[in-house]
């Protein structure tokens, strides 16, 4: 069990570093997928099956595929990183180094955090998640439908093509536009 944890932890850290370091955006996205998968492995080690599945479906499945689509549609698969000015580089290095020193200082002092609650292995099971969603957390669960409804309205409203120019010219969307409509849900 413990070795599995170390394995997943090593994969997460390495792939996360690759996401930032890779020159090619497609490589970045692939490493991010690997990173997400290894994090899902952590969830399974903690007996949080529901979270692990949702994580894989939503992040790895939907969001990352969307990322890949965007990168391909915008033709970003060459390394087109804009070069940064010297000033931004200095500022970024300074800020990053300061943050690192703060973290190291905090770690040296040691922050002791007592667990507020005993670990309960049953919390993450699909059954218990479902039960609390429909009993204690019924209102948040229901009310989030308003949120999703408004997000959907927004996607339709802002993503729809204008009606006015279409009356003059017959509707013939260009290939790239036709592809944008395919948003994986």
């Amino acid at each position, binding site marked *: 069990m413990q070795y599995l944890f170390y394995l997943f932890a090593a994969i997460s850290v390495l792939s996360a570093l690759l996401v930032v370091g890779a020159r090619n955006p497609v490589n970045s996205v692939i490493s991010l997928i690997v990173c997400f998968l290894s994090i899902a492995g952590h969830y399974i080690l903690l007996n949080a099956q529901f979270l692990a599945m949702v994580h894989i479906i939503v992040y790895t499945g939907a969001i990352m595929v969307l990322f890949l689509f965007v990168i391909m549609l915008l033709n970003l698969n060459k390394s087109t990183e804009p070069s940064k000015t010297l000033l931004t580089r200095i500022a970024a290095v300074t800020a990053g180094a300061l943050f690192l020193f703060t973290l190291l200082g905090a770690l040296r002092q040691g922050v002791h955090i007592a667990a*507020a609650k005993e670990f309960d292995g049953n919390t993450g099971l699909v059954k218990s998640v479902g039960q609390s969603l429909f009993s*204690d*957390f019924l209102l*948040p669960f229901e*009310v989030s439908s*308003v*949120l999703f*409804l*408004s997000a959907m309205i927004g996607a339709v409203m*802002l993503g729809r093509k204008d009606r006015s120019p279409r009356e003059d010219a017959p509707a013939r969307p260009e290939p790239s536009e036709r592809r944008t409509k395919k948003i994986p849900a």
Partner: protein
Amino acid sequence: MSALILTSVLGVLLLYLGLFGQKKLLVPVGVLGLLAAIGLFVMDRSINVPMFAHMVSFDRAGWLFSCGMLVVTVLIFLFGADYYARQEENVAEQYALMIFSLTGALLLTSYTNLLMLFLGIEILSIPLYIMAGGKRDSMRSSEASFKYFLLGSFASAFLLMGIALIYGVAASFDLGVVKEVALRQLVQPDILFTLGCFFVAIGLSFKVAAAPFHFWSPDVYEGSPTLITAFMSTVVKMAAFIGLYRFVGITQMPPTLGKALLVMTIFTLMIGNIVALRQSHFKRLMAYSSIAHSGFLLMAVLSQAPNTAQVLFYYTFTYSLATVGLFILMTLAKRAANGDEHIRIFRGLFRAKPWLGVVMLLLMLSLAGIPLTAGFVAKYQIFLLAIGADLIKTTVFAVLMALVGIYYYAVVIREAFTPSEEAPALVVSPVNLLLISVCGISVVLFGLLPGYLQ
């Protein structure tokens, strides 16, 4: 609670009306629904009753704020009748989104669980991001929407991180438990809890546009359709402030958080008032004025006296009345000036329409806080609260900043009373005239009789 359900259903109903092309019915149905929601609130006797497994509970302050926000939304809906008269597309969606946003605002007045705080903020914001991009042919509107979306999601991430940290200490989202933990913190401070409170405060102060998290507001106010700007600077401000007030009250403010909020208050007062001096674009001016007002309101939040909620309500409600009135006036003047938004569009207003000029004077004086208007009473009460909470230096500074603020309001008033060669050809529909008059008169009335709002 039934009002909450009513508003959600009302939004869906408006969408259906839009689907069947009943554009004429949108405003009447919307206004009737909102009035019914106000009625439900007035009839509702369930004050301080926890509902849905301690998720929401309307206390006296939440009740006041809910009614206030519903009233302001009614005003904005009526304004919309004229504003959207020439627009054909997406009108129903705009109204429905506004109602959904209002539902989130109602949750913010009544949350007793940190999850509801997060959901409230999200339901309030996501429709706003969309509405800000409502003018689809305008580059500025899209820019406003995109900026607001990116920065807003960033702030939401802070909020969520803070809630997670608080959960890590308290092992519960329930505000009752969090309050107990917060009391324990006074004896034995825990870094995680302080950090969590800090992150939540950052997320919320983004919504109220307090410095240094205010950078989005001038651009977003400028780019959004005026109706949405009016909604943003009134209902959203009220909701965010009651949310922040409740949160700060529950956590008892760890000393470090108190200090950070105090510094933010001072910066907000300074940036809002001083940068506004250099603005000549009316919407940007109103954005900075709104930042400045956030500074005064933050002072009240810091004081945490028993009557703070009433003062907050009085301040935000009268501020909202004045702001809605001014945005309606701006829309009228903007139409006469072919879409210009510079403050010179008001030139000659008094000569052309004396009554509108007088109302504009009243509204501006109220925002500036001149005696006999509601703005003065509101500021006065806030200063009293701040002095009661031993914030003497901050109060002196705030008074100074309020004096600075009078200048930029006076500049706009001067424009309105300067005669111009050609009087602006203002066309005022009866509904708008009624709305502007109601705003102007009520600002004076509530200034003379402040007791009616408490």
